[in-house]
Each structure stands twice: as structure tokens, then as C-alpha cells.
């Protein structure tokens, strides 16, 4: 029953079909994630070597239609408020398509910096909650825009440092429990800022390795269920700390492959569940870091094609598994 191969053509057609489901209620109910969904779809396509499966001009036009001129950032959909997460996705999409010249970089930089709080953490939007996820969005976006020099690095790092727990992991605010996705955002943010000495790497890599369950999948916190998206949050963190071999790559590969929908394409959180583009993106991203044959290298710090990041001169000292030939 479990698939032993990555079904690339099926996943490509699944991602291409996402825009055709306008007669599906769920399509409209997820409009607040549209920008992110396009980034997830595009990144998955790039990882599978099918970047051009979504029309470049259409994608760029959509991104630009989400510009919120009042705030100076991108919303997730036309008429939605600018948000730091959709702004990062917009920048990632445009950079992947070599179209960053279409962005008013000064205004976006001002928008991002305006969301930093006195404590050093970032808010998601004008009223938004604060969260280390948004610190990552800010740091990654500023770095991709070449405007990291405008950031108060000490203040930013100081907040992230206070979110570190005794288990080596990070929470989303000061005092919060360690969570694998928050580990990714904090470790990758510190990697971009060249401040990985803030991480207790031995302890954290132990905690991350213990996320692997007997079925090969990874969970996000102790004694929780496995989920495909943690493959990326954990593998990217381990790649940044050069410790991917600390988990069983073969078992994780088999787990991700078992979450594919072999009939209609796409990857789910767990075997037998309904697929979505989020897990399709992070499942393929995980497989790329595991050296799955035929996939394109993905940069674990920015979660973008490695070639795009290298061309910008932004590559950090991470190490994924070598790409296998078969």
C-alpha cells in the first residue's frame, strides 16, 4: 500500500489544479492563506524541478494584486490587510521568479521594521500577536531584500534568546514550551544573523533527534503525534547545525512517501489523511534535505531553491544529506 517512490508528475498536476477549484467552498475559505499557498506550491514545484508548471506572469500579477498601499506590505489576497507572513511569501515568490524589481523595497522595509516591538519581537500586523515566527519572517525578508543592515540585531536576538528553554528548544514567546516549528524559525533566524552561538546545539539536536517516532515520522513536541510538516522544521534545523545523521533518514523518507495520495497527488500530514499544499511543500522539502534522488537542492535556512540563495550570496554553512543517485 505504501508508496516507495515520489510521485512527481502526480504532485505537479495536483499543485497546478489548485487554482481550478473555485467551485470548492474550501478554496474560498482559505483565501487568507492564498499568498502562502502559492509560495508553498511554487517551492514544491521548484524542489521537484518543475518551476514553470505555474505560469510566471500570472503568479507575479497575483502577488502584485495583494499589495496593501495603506500599510506598505503584502496581504494574503487582494483586499486583505498587509501581514508580515504574506509579505515574506510575496518576496520569496518574486525572488524565485527573479522579479524583486517590482517591489518598493524602501516601503516594505519600513513596514517590516514598524512591526518590531520594544522587546525586540515582531508582530504579524498592526494589531497582530507577537511571535518568534514573525521575527523570522522579518529577518528572512530583510535579508532577501538586502536590508538587514537596517535591523537592530542585538534587540532582535535578545528576544529570541529569552525564548530558549532548558531542553535547547525555543517557544513562540518568552516562557512558551519548545515546539519544533519554533525551533526552525529561531535557529534559521539566528543562522541568517550569524548568531548560532546563541543555540545550545548539543542539547537541541538531542531534543530534535528524540522527535522521531518508531514509525519513522517526526513529532513537534514530546509525546505528540507525527506529522509530515515536522520533517522540514526538524530537518532544516538539523541541517543548519549539521546533524541530519542523528535521525534515521531511511525511515523518515519512507514515512513521507507513505503520506502521498497515490491517486490524485499531493502529500498529507499523515498516511490516509486529506492532502494539502502546505504538507506537499514541506514533505518534498524534507525529502530534498534527505538527499532523495532526482530532487533539486533546497536551502533549509530560507526554504527556497538553494541556487536562488547562492546567487544572492546568502548561503550559510548548512549541510543536508548528499543527493543519492537512485
Amino acid at each position, binding site marked *: 500500500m505504501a508508496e516507495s517512490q515520489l510521485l512527481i508528475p502526480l504532485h505537479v498536476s495536483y499543485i497546478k489544479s489548485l487554482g481550478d477549484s473555485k*467551485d*470548492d*467552498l474550501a478554496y*474560498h*475559505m*482559505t*483565501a*487568507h*492563506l492564498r499568498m502562502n499557498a502559492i509560495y508553498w506550491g511554487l517551492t514544491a514545484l521548484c524542489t521537484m524541478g518543475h518551476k514553470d508548471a505555474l505560469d510566471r506572469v500570472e503568479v507575479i500579477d497575483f502577488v502584485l494584486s495583494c499589495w496593501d498601499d495603506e500599510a506598505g506590505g503584502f496581504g494574503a489576497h487582494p*483586499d*486583505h*490587510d498587509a*501581514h508580515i507572513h504574506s509579505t515574506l511569501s510575496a518576496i520569496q515568490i518574486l525572488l524565485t521568479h527573479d522579479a524583486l524589481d517590482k517591489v518598493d523595497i524602501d516601503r516594505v522595509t519600513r513596514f517590516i521594521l514598524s512591526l518590531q516591538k520594544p522587546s525586540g519581537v515582531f508582530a*504579524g*500586523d*498592526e*494589531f*497582530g*500577536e507577537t511571535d518568534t515566527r514573525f521575527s523570522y519572517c522579518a529577518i528572512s525578508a530583510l535579508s532577501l531584500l538586502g536590508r538587514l543592515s537596517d535591523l537592530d540585531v542585538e534587540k532582535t536576538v535578545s528576544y529570541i534568546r529569552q525564548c530558549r*528553554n*532548558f*531542553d535547547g528548544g525555543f*517557544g513562540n*514567546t518568552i*516562557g*512558551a*514550551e*519548545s*515546539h519544533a516549528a519554533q525551533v526552525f524559525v529561531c535557529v534559521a533566524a539566528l543562522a541568517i544573523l550569524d548568531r548560532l552561538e546563541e543555540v545550545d*546545539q*548539543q542539547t537541541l*539536536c*538531542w*531534543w530534535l*533527534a*528524540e522527535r*522521531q517516532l518508531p514509525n*519513522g515520522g517526526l513529532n513537534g*513536541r*514530546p*509525546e*505528540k503525534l507525527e*506529522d509530515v*510538516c515536522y520533517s522540514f522544521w526538524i530537518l532544516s534545523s538539523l541541517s543548519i547545525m549539521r546533524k541530519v*545523521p*542523528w*535521525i*534515521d533518514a531511511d*525511515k523518515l523518507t519512507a514515512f513521507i512517501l507513505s503520506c502521498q*495520495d497515490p*491517486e490524485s497527488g499531493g502529500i*498529507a*500530514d499523515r498516511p*490516509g*489523511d*486529506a*492532502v*494539502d499544499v*502546505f*504538507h506537499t511543500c514541506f514533505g518534498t522539502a524534507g525529502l530534498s534535505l534527505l538527499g532523495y534522488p532526482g530532487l533539486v537542492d533546497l536551502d533549509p535556512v530560507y526554504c527556497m531553491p538553494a541556487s536562488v540563495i547562492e546567487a544572492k550570496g546568502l548561503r550559510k554553512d548548512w549541510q543536508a544529506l548528499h543527493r543519492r543517485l537512485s
Partner: protein
Amino acid sequence: MHSGKRVRQTPAAIEARKQREKSKIQDYLALTREVTSRKKSRDFSTEALDLTQTLLQLNPEFYTIWNYRRNILLHGLFPNSSPEGINDLLSSELSMTTAALKANPKVYGIWNYRRWCLENVPDGPETEDGLSHSWKKAKWDRELYVVERMLDADGRNFHAWNYRRYVLAMMPTRRPEASELAYTTRKIEANFSNFSAWHQRSKILSSLWNDVGTSAISSREDEFEFVRNALYTDPDDQSAWIYHRWLVGSGQERQTLEREIGSIEELLKEQPDSKWCLESLVHYQRLLLRNNRDENSKETAQKCLGFLLMLQEIDPARRSRYKEIGGGNSRTKHSMISYHSYLLFFR
């Protein structure tokens, strides 16, 4: 982004569902258009407020609409209301989000909106017994009850735990930390696997022990007893082992460290292939080697190596880590240099 089971539908069934959804989609899109056009024209009326409520009940993740709702209150309704009026408005906002959270306990936007409401509650008049901030106090005091019901439904919901810490920090009348400690005891005793409760306990105790100084010693001993009970109950559950590691910390108190090692060795006798016993023994013995150097070090180092070999067998998924710690991987010796040199030195 986490959905349910994949259901295989026939093309006919899909077509039927799409037909059924057609009018729902039309209504939803019409309402969305109506609300966003009112938002654009800065309509801050009660009517607009009601429309956002209908839309948010259909889709609580629509963050833009939560923002609009705040703006309606801030710019339309608050300026024309007495403090009593504002308090009433916010009371009904809080009821609305209570219902929304029951249906959608993991939607960031609802939790966030609820915080905003609480932070905007007016202080209220002085009560007869001279208490100030009466409205504010009443609202915040109720929040712990609300969040406890959420944690009863799902003891690992990190939104609810984060919200709990936020409420505890913001309440006009602070709750003694001892009460929060008792809450974590209840949650842990109900389910030893609830690491969220163990985590909270580590935060509360850190704070308590910082404040009270010397009386912390006996309390620490009680804590070792508490966690030992959990370890013996289910040695395969990692929650208590991770917490135990916090409690031991850097192992500066040699006596405590050696006692804990002894206690785990006892457990290992009962459970000879317990991964967490072995893993923890390696960790604590390495601390012992790092902190103290004496005639027993050689024996301790050899014991560690033996445990690491056993771990490679019983926990093959993490074999590379055990090898590396044992010094088996010469390319990565930097991290374990002190321990590794011990092994070489005594070999």
C-alpha cells in the same frame, strides 16, 4: 492546516457536493464583498459590526476581518459610549470569542482578538468594599476559568497554555505561584505524558526557587521524589525524563547527581533494555565526568561506552548520535572533546 481523513469520492459524489456548495459559495463571497467594501469606505457602524460577526462565524481565520472589527469598535462605537457602554460591548465580544474558541481552539486570530478585548476593558468604578478596577478584575479573574476549560478539552493545546501564562502575568491581582504549581501537579497526575504541564512546572519552580532562596532545598528534594514516581510509572514516556534533566541541570551537586544515577540504575535492573534509562545514565555520567575527576572516572567512562553500545542496538534510529558521542566518528570529535580525551586517556 491540519485536515481529516482522505475520503475517496466518486465523480458523481463530487459533482453533487459542488452543486450543494454552490449557493454557500455565492453567499459567502457576497458577504465578503459587502464587508470589505464597507471596510474600504471606513464604515464603523453597528450594522458593519454585525456583518463582521456573521462572516467571522463562517470563517474565524479571516484575520483582516478581526482587524476591521477592532477598528469598528475603536473608531465607531467606543467614542460614542460611556465606560459602562464600552464594558458591555467588550463583554459581548468576549462571549462571542468564547463560543468561537470552543469550535476552533487552535485559531490564532481568535485568541489574539480576545487578548485585545481584555486589554481594552475599562477599570470600572470602585466597589463598596473599596476595590478599584472592579470591571477589569472581574473580567481577568474569569479568564483562568475559561482557559482551564480549554485545557480540560486538550491538555497540550499550546495556544491555551500561552494564553494561560499571559493571563497569569496580566491579572490585576496576581495569583500566588503556589496555586499555579498545584495546577501543574493536577495536570501531571491526570496524565504523566503531558509535557506542556511539566514545562509550565519548570518555569514556575525556577521563579519560586529564585525568590525564596534557602527553602528551595527541601522543595527540590520533594520534586525529585515527584518526578521519580512518574519515571517508575512509565519509563518509556519521555516527558518525565526531559523534566528530570531540567531538575538535575548541570549536576553541580555531586551527591544529588550520584543519588539520581543510583536510582536510575535501580530502575534499569527492572527494565534492562529501557532506552531512556540508558540515555539518561550516559548523560548524567558525562556530567559527573565533566565536573569531577577522580579514581572512579575510568570506570564511569567505560560504563558510558557500554551503555552507548547498547543504545546503538536498542535505538538504531539514533545510532549515529550514540556513535558520535562515544567518539566513534573521528570527524566530529570537537563536541565531545573532553569526554573523548578521557576515554583515550584511560584506555
